[in-house]
């Protein structure tokens, strides 16, 4: 369970959000929407603990994420708008490193190469891949983790229709397994209403 308690954040003289309070329960999604520059990505970064809010707190299972950083860190898979991949290394090398950081000794990521249409370019340096393929590689990193909380920033950018459907399918599966997700997206998600909490940003100017 992820709880945000009276979050307030200013960027310069611009108030991005004020007294923002919400709760995301196991098995549900928080959809963050709003126009460009309304602070969607910033909110996601606050929820991950990358940025600090001016006031308010974020809690994971009723514990502040600041005080339980390593427990919380082990539960997050972050899929940012930059991929977090090393462009000089191959898809396999990138995912092998991610596996080592997750403490996985098997080559579990290989199961995801085929459904993500990456198997033919698994040994190519990431810099030679298209933007969509790079996003798919980053997605493989999310899928191979056992993280309970998925943080996704515009997950559908650069992806084709098949890629979108694949993400939505995996997201549904993740939620069915009692996972949580925070998704920043311009479009709505094709999920049942009871699973969805929506936060609209950008109304505070």
């Amino acid at each position, binding site marked *: 369970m992820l709880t945000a308690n009276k979050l307030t954040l200013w960027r310069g003289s611009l108030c991005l959000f004020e007294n923002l309070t919400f709760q995301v329960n196991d098995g549900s999604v928080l959809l963050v929407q709003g126009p460009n520059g309304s602070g969607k990505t910033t909110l996601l970064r606050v929820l991950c603990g990358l940025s600090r809010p001016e006031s308010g707190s974020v809690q994971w299972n009723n514990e502040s994420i600041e005080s339980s950083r390593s427990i919380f860190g082990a539960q997050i898979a972050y899929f940012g708008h930059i991929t977090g991949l090393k462009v000089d290394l191959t898809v396999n090398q990138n995912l092998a490193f991610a596996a*080592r950081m997750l403490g996985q000794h098997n080559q579990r990521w290989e199961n995801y190469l085929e459904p993500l249409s990456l198997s033919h370019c698994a040994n190519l340096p990431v810099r030679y891949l298209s933007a969509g393929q790079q996003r798919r590689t980053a997605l493989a990193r999310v899928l191979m983790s056992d993280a309970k909380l998925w943080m996704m920033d515009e997950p559908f950018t650069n992806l084709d229709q098949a890629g979108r459907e694949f993400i939505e399918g995996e997201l549904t599966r993740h939620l069915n397994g009692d996972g949580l997700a925070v998704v920043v997206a311009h479009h709505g998600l094709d999920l049942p209403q009871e699973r969805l909490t929506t936060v609209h940003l950008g109304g505070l100017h």
Partner: protein
Amino acid sequence: MTGGSIFWAVIQRELQIAFQRLGDLVSPLMFYVLVTALFPLALSPKREVLQNLAPAVLWIAALLALLLSMNALFRTDVEDGSMEQLVIGPHSLPLIMLAKTVAHWLVSGLPLVLLAPLLAVTYYLPAEGVRALCLTLLIGTPTLSLLGSIGAALTAGIRQSGALLALLVMPLMLPVLMYGARGTDLAAQGETISGPLYLLGAFMVLSLTLVPLASAAAIRVSLD
């Protein structure tokens, strides 16, 4: 997942990346060779002059070459988002920062240490001096890399931050330079150098224990 295996995983990845970018590896070495080669040309090729200059020139050039390479230490990680992944992850950030700095020293500091005796010979530095130069550089350059990593972490989010980085970390690096060059000079004159060596060792232990904490805090600030 133990700290040790995380440490090795990060070092291995950094080395993999470094060998994909050989040009970046060679440029500090080229800088070192060029700077030290220019002094005899501009000053005088006389044996006494060069012998007197050698400790200072070889140490200053090593420091500047290392500083030149520090700039990119965390920049690409911040730009490609891999630093975010590491910061969010459950592992100790100071340990990861230390691993990255060690890897950086292995690819840009260690080659300087290995190259230094060759350059020292061209400066007619006597054998004791060459030995002392290698020894002081071997203890001093890791300290310089560590100190530089604080500045690199603080300026990782800023473009064109070369001058700022130098301004930030140069004052911290000066004692290492002074004792390193002085130690080499003493040895060249046939004196004992245990004093400077002990002090350099103390600097290294101090920075090894404290710097990873500082650079972890600094990178969090840079990412905020």
